[in-house]
């Protein structure tokens, strides 16, 4: 039995060709000659876009999918080229990747680790995908990242904010463009200090699972460094829909800042409930009561409506940025779909381009070559300023945006305004930072 892992579509195809070439069907057995998993030997290369299409993050998934389609179009030379024109690397020619036409398959993660892995596996085993990307939650990203490592394909993470993705669960075959909890804390802290001073009492409400914990840890550490006092850290069940019983005690706790370490539907509901309980009109310890949502998402902010007004948080990217890259992206996305892209769309578009570029520069689809090309790679022009893909942990270091819910939105997309662009240097941390300790990158796996 051939000692191969996963299917090798490329070999299959050549085998199939050999078969059809003869009058009688011959049986061709794949040899272990292939250099790596799913080596694309035909005229096209297949990428796997694994996004939530059902469940609470389906809209974010849909937006990611739009961006992926746009990226594929641009890579194949269609459309206006988007950020390919502003990208600092000029390797991509608009003729696919390494001259191969880019094709894609899509799948549904359902925001469940199991389903996401099943979907990714089917892309690798059945469709011959050479790279998997996508996702809208950290649990899924980490689970799929682990799978890709074992399978010998590259994983370009989508929206995942947990420190663990490039911390204790980092993998050699996995890369994250999105920022993380630590960076949110580092970016927010100085802004919060300017706005609310150094003498504050913070009350944390945290989604009771790993992402929530890492964010809580990051934000608490960053604000405590300012001199803030953390009054209480309360964990809320993932399944909670009504946060009123967690909000109510905040009033009498002596806290004057509420930090909501929630995302998605949890964030919408906890923020709505907090505003409902009149927290924002309160004056505690002689100061105005404030709410902070460390990880903002415009798509989700919409669900909270007017409640986001004036509330600060951080985000990876926002369509209102005025740099050339962002504008080019917003233009091509907006022209095609009629509304501006979300940060999820932006990060996955970048990831696709970065992968394609790395392959182009490496001159091979071999995951180990791609890893080498991406590690410690510096680039610009993708909307976040100068960015470094750090080799030690495969995390991108770039500027982080501090945003605020806009008081007078002019349209349904105009919900957030950028308050501050925190430079990359301020959010950079050493690779052996304790919040990211415990895991090992391992070595790249090409599946051979």
């Amino acid at each position, binding site marked *: 039995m051939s000692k191969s892992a996963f299917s090798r579509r490329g070999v299959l195809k050549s085998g199939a060709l050999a078969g059809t070439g003869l009058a009688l069907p011959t049986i061709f057995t794949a040899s272990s000659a292939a250099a790596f998993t799913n080596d694309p030997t035909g005229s096209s290369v297949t990428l796997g876009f694994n996004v939530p299409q059902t469940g609470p993050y*389906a809209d974010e998934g849909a937006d990611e999918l739009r961006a992926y389609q746009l990226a594929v179009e641009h890579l194949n030379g269609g459309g206006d080229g988007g950020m390919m024109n502003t990208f600092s690397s000029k390797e991509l020619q608009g003729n696919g990747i390494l001259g191969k036409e880019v094709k894609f398959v899509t799948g549904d993660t359902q925001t469940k680790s199991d389903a996401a892995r099943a979907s990714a596996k089917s892309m690798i085993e059945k469709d011959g995908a050479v790279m998997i990307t996508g996702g809208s939650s950290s649990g899924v990203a980490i689970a799929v990242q682990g799978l890709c490592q074992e399978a010998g394909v590259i994983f370009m993470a989508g929206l995942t904010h947990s420190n663990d993705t490039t911390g204790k669960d980092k993998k050699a075959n996995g890369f994250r463009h999105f920022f993380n909890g630590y960076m949110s804390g580092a970016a927010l802290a100085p802004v919060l200090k300017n706005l609310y001073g150094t003498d504050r009492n913070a009350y944390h409400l945290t989604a009771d699972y790993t992402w929530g914990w890492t964010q809580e840890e990051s934000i608490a550490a960053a604000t405590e460094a300012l001199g803030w006092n953390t009054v209480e850290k309360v964990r809320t069940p993932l399944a909670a829909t009504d946060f*009123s019983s967690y909000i109510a005690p905040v*009033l009498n706790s002596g806290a004057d800042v509420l930090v909501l370490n929630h995302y998605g539907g949890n964030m919408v509901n906890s923020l709505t409930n907090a505003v409902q309980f009149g927290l924002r009109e309160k004056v505690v310890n002689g100061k105005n009561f404030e709410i902070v949502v460390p990880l903002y998402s415009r798509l*989700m902010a919409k669900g*909270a409506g007017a409640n986001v007004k004036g509330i600060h948080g951080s985000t990876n990217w926002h369509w209102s940025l005025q740099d050339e890259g962002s504008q080019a992206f917003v233009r091509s996305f907006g022209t095609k779909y009629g509304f501006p892209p979300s940060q999820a769309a932006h990060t996955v578009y970048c990831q696709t381009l970065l992968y394609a570029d790395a392959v182009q520069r490496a001159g091979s689809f071999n995951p180990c070559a791609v890893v080498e090309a991406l590690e410690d790679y510096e680039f610009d022009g993708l909307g976040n300023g100068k960015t470094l893909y750090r080799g030690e942990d495969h995390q991108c270091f770039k500027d982080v945006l501090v945003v605020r819910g806009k008081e007078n939105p*002019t349209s349904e997309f105009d919900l957030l305004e950028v308050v501050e662009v925190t430079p990359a240097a301020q959010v950079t941390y050493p690779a052996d930072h304790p919040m990211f300790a415990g895991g090992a990158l391992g070595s790249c796996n090409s599946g051979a």
Partner: protein
Amino acid sequence: MDAILLQILNGLDKGSAYALIALGLTLIFGTLGVVNFAHGALFMIGAFCAVTVQRLLSLSYEVVDETQKDFLGNPLKVKTSYVESWFGPEMGGAIIDWAVPIAIIFAIPIMILIGFVMERGLIKHFYKREHADQILVTFGLAIVLQEVIKYFYGANPIQTASPEALSGVANVGALFGTEIFYPVWRIVYFFFSVVIIGGIFSFLQFTTFGMVVRAGMADRETVGLLGINIDRRFTIMFGIAAAVAGLAGVMYTPINSPNYHMGMDFLVLSFVVVVVGGMGSLPGAVLAGFMLGILEAFASMNEVKSILPGIDQIIIYVVAIIILLTRPRGLMGRKGVMEE
């Protein structure tokens, strides 16, 4: 002390949603003997009635304003809603502001109609079928309803605000001589649910229609033998149950922004409530709803969580297990209902 009062209040408020959904579920169990997994979906549809009314009221026409730019740099299209242009900005604005209460008026006939169609078109063919079949068909229906809503409204929550006048906080503590601030709309929700529950009970208690239905709940065959068309009454009851779930949904929208799977989120919980209350018992369902709401509120207190970490995650289930083991048929269940 204040903290405890606050949590009791919060529990009553949480419990009102549970009680309303469980009430409708029990009406359907009790009268029709059908396990309705689509009941959560009815709650969700009610909520989307409010969303739809709000959207209809905000329907607008666009005027291109050359002085402002949209995100692509093109001239901005400024939207003005028809309601505002018809009634003037003030009156029109007020109408839009009151979209949720207005939605109640629309939701009642729509929900009753949906209930009728569901019962006549689907459920009635399943009275004599096994509970397993009922579960499968209503679950399938729930998925379909949910996906239809998702297709038209997307998966993200949609904010539906309460009227400005009812969105602040009120000092409930004044009644007890302390200061306890509580959101006005949640108080409204509580009283609303009390009124609906009271209405349903008196309807069943004091009208002949209600008496026949109650008799039918106890012994369907005998009532059928009396020559009373119990089937038609049961159809109406299904419509009423749907309307109760729908109204619970409409009024819930300002509390939490509705999304397409909110029904499923409530479904399991409301089944637990119904069973804890006792199958087929209306007072049981209401009692269990409020009781579980209050217990949930207490379990989420920091003082409690520090002693029993994670208790708020499982309190409902722990209570359900304890009650079912100590009281075989829930709090007020009747013998022989749904036991085989």
